[in-house]
């Protein structure tokens, strides 16, 4: 009667317990379902352009401020110059993308729920 005996007993008990578990779902097959692929594609088609857009929009501000300083010093509205207005517009750019994403993602949620339903998962 050693610890090893006890350990083996536990292991066999564990194996027996595992045998009664339902079979694991075939995840590759589920992930390949057209509904899921459509969801991924829809998300990608929205998120990737958004990311590219905000990255370009943000870094073009830094680029202009850093390397075209004289140009962005031009006053265009009252006492406000291009540099300040462009910086301020970044806030609205971020808010608009966040707003659009929230609207769009309620559709993603529906798509995801429909897919899970079809794949046989109960919510």
């Amino acid at each position, binding site marked *: 009667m050693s610890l090893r005996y006890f350990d083996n007993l536990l292991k066999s008990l564990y194996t027996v317990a595992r045998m009664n578990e339902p079979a694991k779902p075939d995840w590759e097959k589920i*992930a390949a379902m057209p509904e*899921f692929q459509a969801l991924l594609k829809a998300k990608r088609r929205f998120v990737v352009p958004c*990311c590219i857009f905000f990255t370009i929009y*943000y870094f073009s501000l830094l680029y202009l*401020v*850093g390397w075209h300083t004289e140009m962005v010093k031009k006053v265009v509205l009252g006492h406000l110059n291009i540099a300040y207005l462009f910086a301020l517009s970044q806030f609205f*750019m971020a808010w608009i*993308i966040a707003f659009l994403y929230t609207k769009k993602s309620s559709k993603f949620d529906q798509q995801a729920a429909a897919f899970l339903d079809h794949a046989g*998962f109960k919510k």
Partner: protein
Amino acid sequence: MAIGMFIAFVLVTLLITFFTAKKNSGSNAYFAAGRSIKGWQNGLAVAGDYMSAASFLGITGMIATAGYDGFMYSVGWLVAYLTVLLIVAEPLRNAGKYTMADLLAYRLNERPVRAAASLSTLTVSTFYMIAQMVGAAAIVKGLLPNVSFNVVAFTVGLLMIVYVVYGGMKGTTWVQIIKAILLMSGTIFLSFLVMKHYGFSFSKFFEAAAHVPSAGGVKNFLNPGMKFGSAINPWGPLDLVSLGLALVFGTAGLPHILVRFYTVPDAKTARISVVWAMVIIGTFYILTTFMGYGAATILNGKLPLDANMIAPTLAHELGGEVFFAFISAVAFATILAVVAGLTISASTSFAHDLYANVIRHGQHTAPHKEVRVARIASFVVGIIAILLAIVLQNMNVAFLVGLAFAVAASSNLPVIVLSIFWRRFTTTGAVAGILVGLISSITLIIISPAVMGIDAPGTAANKMHFIQHAAIFPLQNPGIVSIPLGFLAAIIGSLIRRDPRAEGMFGEFSVRAHTGLGSEKASDH
């Protein structure tokens, strides 16, 4: 009076902490507030965790002294949330449990990945925390010249230990919410007073900002170039881009922000909370225009020497003693709350990643034991923070915060993104990415002008560079080099050898991460 208001804040938050602590049972409650926080509440809490002393005191001071270039921090810190919203928040909530490492450990070999992720989490949190504690020192010197810094460090440290050890995530979340509301009220009122000073005329306000009398004649503070201009430093523009990279990609890698998304019931609420946070944080950063330029114009000629004291001084000038006391109390509360948020994320990572999964080999650890380890860890983290703050009280705050963002952007973000979107990502890649990002960003900062430089004789001890030698790396911010290095190491590490198990689990991971199937549910209590 400032102390009285601060004590009122502490008493209210302590009451809430004890009240919520009563319901704190089990690890879900302790680490993730039972996943029962509402969207708007978590939005406020994220904002509370994010708007640190560096934001409130630091940016106001920077705009007041460096004009437009200080506003660049404001812009970057909001745009950063698009990365959180579009890429990180929902998959993290869906596939993880308590920490950032959960996301990586889903498909990869748990022990090395958790050890590496925990190392970078603890590093980022520690640098961020020291920055907050050191920031407290500056305020204390200005507000309470008679109180020694050691007393303050102990008070802040001990209070924070109480919040975290007793209140857990729920108590900490409520501290953040209250603090965010106070900070926003203070900011809105201070901006209101600035505009009142200018007769509520934007035209008069911006006219003043465009004509600030300075040593070298009248300066237009709306023009860029006073800090990052190529006329001041030929590397300035590149440093600005490098800083922008660290801000935009660092936020989505900050452990104390990421853990907040585990406190809500599902990914949809996580998304809503990011949007709430963006509205609050964006409004706050736009208002830094009024506080910063207001200080530059109204306090012209009598700006305090310590830039951190500019916002409280402006409050004193426009709102008198009472408002000065309120703003100072808000500044204390801010530091206290952010430090509490950092402590809980650091101790959670220690208990959940290092203790339960690395030291105990992932054998079953009773949840109450994990909570106990986390409580002990927060206690230890708190004590270490107090001691480090006392030892390092003369360090440059901007340098520490920059380090935290650069490390988060270089070591955490690349592996988070790759583990969500790249089937072939492997354990070797994750560990290599984290370590290379961590080591390269820290090394580059050590050899940058932030640490290295030759000071003129007679420079004050707390303004001197650590290493008296010309800087080897020309940029203050390492992001532009260390972020690509982090990505590169993660990609090369993954390409060296395939990991069939990780690839085989990508389907399951994707389904769960993008649909929320089987994600951690809110617990009733």
